């Protein structure tokens, strides 16, 4: 395999000139209010917080901080709107959801730029993945609105009431779509809280919802941090909680909900095994590794953060992976050629760097690509840990960054045992040219989604969710309707 003298060079010669996406066409206000009862209203206590561009550390806007009183107002508005929304003919409800989908498509470019500005993800991903998928979710669930009786034959599906939804910062608009689309299609009303580091596309979505003419109060968007989320979770007139975020916060929520009759779905952390057999198509597997862990800076709950490579090809795969990493461009999220954008926040960068230090102290070998990174902003080069085992913390714990822990295995059973030897169970990947091996492995890995010869593929028709500490319930597809309906006895 690659020896020092047989090494490929990617650092000189023809380079790509900057190709920045224009920001001329977007409109950002200096200050954003809360979206309650169809209007943008100032927070009761008049407090605001800042949202910054993680690539420049510059302030993008000030955003209203919702307290208990604001959440109470939002829940009351959702409660008032519920009766009318629920009684609307299902096909009419569907029309509103379709309208949201279409407006999102029309304004896709604007949303993509704002998503990259606020969250740091490369424009290539917000343009090609986040925004189109968000629109696709609205389209998909709009179609179900008047077909719920067919989704659950012989049952009497009824909406739950007010859904409190708390979403993370890694896919801000997409997660809002995952939550809002099925809730509305099933006849619920919504109080949604976006993450405090990425509130802007949700607030832009509030504009879309207003433009789409949804009755006031059907969707309410309140911004803030953990306390705002707690106010939603603990509010007595909320009927359902949908949360996507860390396992730690998921635990707090589940405790808070114990003994109440609120329904809930929790989509939490992960530490997915990505398993490469020697007979796999190795060059495509290397792409799958890259896509599995470096997509969205590794800020992906279903990231393939634990790599298992069969020993016979381990050196070859790691050498190829290292060369491939040299071609990944880290930098300005708005540049169309950027592969890895900015780490979402100073706090998250600190977490990642803490884990890099833990890994070093545990004796792991660290490899990072050599690409330059900008001076200002929050950045992390794509990183590999080798020489680690299941006993290493960097193998056990979710890092939520572009950091991959690599182990080798000898047999099918060893790979399977280690893949399942984790408190998480959100996703997994298997790479082999043998169909039988695919079926055996995908049946045996205890994870909500297992990809074969690909990774990180999402579709609104496909259910998504975790085993064990990765969460409760499913979102997406037919299963995603269940979470927003009372199916009767």
């Amino acid at each position: 395999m690659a020896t020092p003298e047989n090494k490929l060079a990617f650092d000189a010669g023809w380079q790509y000139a900057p190709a920045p996406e224009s920001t001329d066409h977007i409109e950002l206000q200096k200050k954003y209010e809360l979206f309650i009862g169809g209007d943008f209203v100032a927070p009761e206590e008049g407090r605001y917080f800042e949202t910054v561009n993680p690539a420049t550390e510059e302030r993008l806007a000030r955003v209203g901080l919702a307290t208990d009183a604001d959440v109470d107002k939002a829940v009351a508005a959702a409660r008032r709107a519920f009766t009318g929304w629920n009684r609307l003919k299902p096909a009419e409800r569907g029309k509103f959801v379709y309208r949201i989908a279409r407006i999102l498509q029309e304004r896709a470019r604007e949303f993509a730029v704002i998503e990259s500005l606020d969250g740091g993800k490369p424009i290539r991903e917000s343009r090609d993945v986040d925004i189109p998928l968000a629109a696709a979710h609205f389209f998909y669930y709009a179609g179900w609105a008047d077909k719920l009786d067919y989704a659950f034959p012989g049952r009497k599906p009824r909406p739950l009431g007010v859904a409190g939804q708390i979403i993370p910062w890694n896919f801000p608009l997409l997660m809002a779509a995952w939550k809002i689309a099925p809730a509305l299609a099933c006849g619920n009303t919504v109080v949604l809280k976006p993450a405090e580091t990425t509130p802007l596309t949700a607030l832009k979505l509030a504009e879309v919802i207003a433009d789409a003419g949804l009755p006031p109060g059907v969707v309410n968007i309140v911004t803030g941090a953990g306390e705002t989320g707690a106010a939603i979770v603990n509010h007595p007139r909320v009927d359902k909680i949908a949360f996507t975020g860390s396992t730690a916060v998921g635990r707090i929520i589940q405790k808070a909900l114990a003994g109440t009759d609120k329904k809930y779905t929790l989509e939490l952390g992960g530490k997915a095994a990505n398993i490469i057999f020697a007979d796999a198509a190795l060059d495509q597997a290397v792409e799958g590794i890259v896509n599995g862990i470096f997509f969205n800076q590794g800020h992906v709950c279903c990231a393939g953060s634990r790599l298992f490579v069969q020993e016979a090809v381990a050196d070859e795969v790691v050498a190829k992976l290292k060369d491939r990493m040299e071609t990944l461009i880290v930098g300005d999220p708005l540049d169309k050629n950027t592969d890895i954008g900015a780490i979402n926040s100073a706090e998250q960068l600190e977490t990642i760097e803490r884990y890099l230090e833990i890994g070093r102290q545990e004796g792991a070998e660290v490899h990072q690509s050599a690409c330059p990174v900008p001076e200002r902003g929050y950045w992390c080069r794509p990183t590999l840990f080798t020489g680690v085992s299941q006993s290493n913390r960097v193998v056990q714990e979710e890092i939520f960054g572009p950091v991959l822990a690599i182990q080798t295995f000898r047999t099918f059973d060893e790979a399977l045992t280690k893949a399942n030897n984790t408190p998480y169970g959100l996703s997994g990947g298997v790479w082999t040219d043998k169909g039988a091996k695919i079926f055996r492995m995908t049946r045996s890995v205890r994870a909500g989604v297992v990809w074969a010869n690909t990774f990180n593929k999402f579709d609104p028709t496909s259910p998504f969710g975790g085993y064990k500490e990765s969460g409760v319930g499913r979102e997406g597809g037919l299963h995603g309707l269940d979470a927003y309906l009372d199916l009767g006895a």
Partner: protein
Amino acid sequence: MVTAIETRTTLPDLSRVTAVDEVGVNERVARFQSRSIKTTAKVEALKLILSMIDLTTLEGADTPGKVRQLCQKAMHLHDAMPGLPHVAAVCVYPTMVGVAKKALAGRDINIASVATGFPSGQAPLSVKLDETRMAVEAGASEIDMVISRGAFLAGEYARVFDEIVAIKEACGEAHLKVILETGELRTLDNVRRASVLAMHAGADFIKTSTGKIQPAATMQVTLVMLQAIRDFYYETGRMVGMKPAGGISRSKLAVHYLVMLRETLGNAWMTPEWFRFGASSLANDVLMQLKKQETGVYQSADYFSLD
């Protein structure tokens, strides 16, 4: 040196060549095509593309006059724009090599000749060898041979391998480009295996297509071949060149090929010594784009000579 020759001329176990997943290849190609190449990077790329072109005419109707015109174009791509590179080579049938040699006398432009019963390769080995020697004697510095696809598909790898070894020997000093005719190999697994076979047999370049079979070059097959070249380099330290041919007539597509080359093999291959485009109509489109970069507007095709 003896060991080097030995490793070069041993047929490798093709069953150990890694599998290729078509879906994954398509995704990777789509990523190359989503790169945005603008301004200075574009101009640099366009000039590089011109310098990598094997300007080609391979028709039954070729005449000495037609070949002389082609050579004139090779030397004078567009004199109205100073500072342009010349193409890497002209590519003709063996009978036209002498004409090209005379027309290009004293110029730093290679003469490539197809040989070995081009395009089908359905000729006895002795004829293929004679044809190769004749082309080299007439002045070809590069030989573009075709493999026996029938034999390859029948699993007679040793026969295909031995043929390449023999032709390589007949080439002498001339560089050997081995045309796999990927359109007839059908699967990407076959493309990968044929690439490995050809490189081990001594190919200096591997080339996708004759241009006579559809599909000719695609980014997918080229990617698979580039990855085979990379693995061969990892293994042996020997660089092998790549030539996609047929079907690349637009600058934008050619730029995407360069992106793919850069991100698969790196800088060392980004020269006409290691990468060629086999094309007859690409040059004018590149010239047109260069003019557009310079002036901001497209000129009519009538301002660019057609030879």
